[in-house]
């Protein structure tokens, strides 16, 4: 196997929205596993630990770096949610036509960002 040439098409491709949405789905999903789940457990531990441990959590969560992490987690969630719903549609065998596929790839990515903005607007104003 070693000396035979590989077919050249494997390195000839260009970026498309369907590739972006696929990679973002994996990055946000695995990213949440590494970041959001430890934060979730920390938050639960802080609630169980009493007012002082909750105050420590709230102090870090409310600091600028905490807000960066929380906004990042919320974006990862909404991005993963919208592209996940896209996966359900594709599981059903729909949406494989190139234009439809590209359209929904762009749409799910944008809707994920809009939902993140709407969520934080709700946090601030409700």
């Amino acid at each position, binding site marked *: 196997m070693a000396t035979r040439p590989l077919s050249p098409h494997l390195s000839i491709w260009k970026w498309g929205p369907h590739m972006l949405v696929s990679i973002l789905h994996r990055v946000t999903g695995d990213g*949440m596993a590494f970041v959001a789940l430890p934060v979730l457990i920390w938050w639960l531990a802080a*609630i169980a630990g009493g007012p002082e441990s909750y105050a420590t959590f709230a102090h870090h969560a409310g600091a600028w770096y905490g807000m960066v992490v929380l906004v990042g987690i919320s974006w990862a969630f909404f991005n993963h949610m919208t592209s996940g719903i896209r996966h359900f549609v594709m599981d059903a065998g729909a949406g494989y036509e190139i234009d439809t596929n590209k359209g929904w790839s762009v749409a799910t990515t944008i809707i994920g960002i809009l939902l993140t903005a709407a969520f934080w607007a709700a946090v601030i104003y409700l």
Partner: protein
Amino acid sequence: MGDGTELGRVRGLGSAHEGEEAWLQQRMTAVGNLLLVSFVAISLVLLPDLSYGSVVGWIKHPVPAVAMAALVVNVFWHARLGLSELVGDYVHETGNKFAALLVINFAAAAGIAFGLFFILKASLGGAAA
């Protein structure tokens, strides 16, 4: 099934005959996450504030406590499946793959155990908020 090229060794074997259980569980937990995270997120946003008293008062109610417990089990199971898929795609050496899957399974089990313990402690234990 010959012992020639890699393609020749797998041709005619059909599918892997495994994996549909994980595929289905990933979808089941995905729907569960959609419902549970939505419920918890909306509940928390609708609280007057996110102070200690408000959050403890919330988690002492049966439905929020059970929803949080279900969320912890569901979300860690979903993450376990997703991370295992990542390992399956990129870690091919048998020993490394086993070690990575071991860590993922232990971490998911620990996350579920600690999560449930903290929820029980917060909702059942100690002084009222």
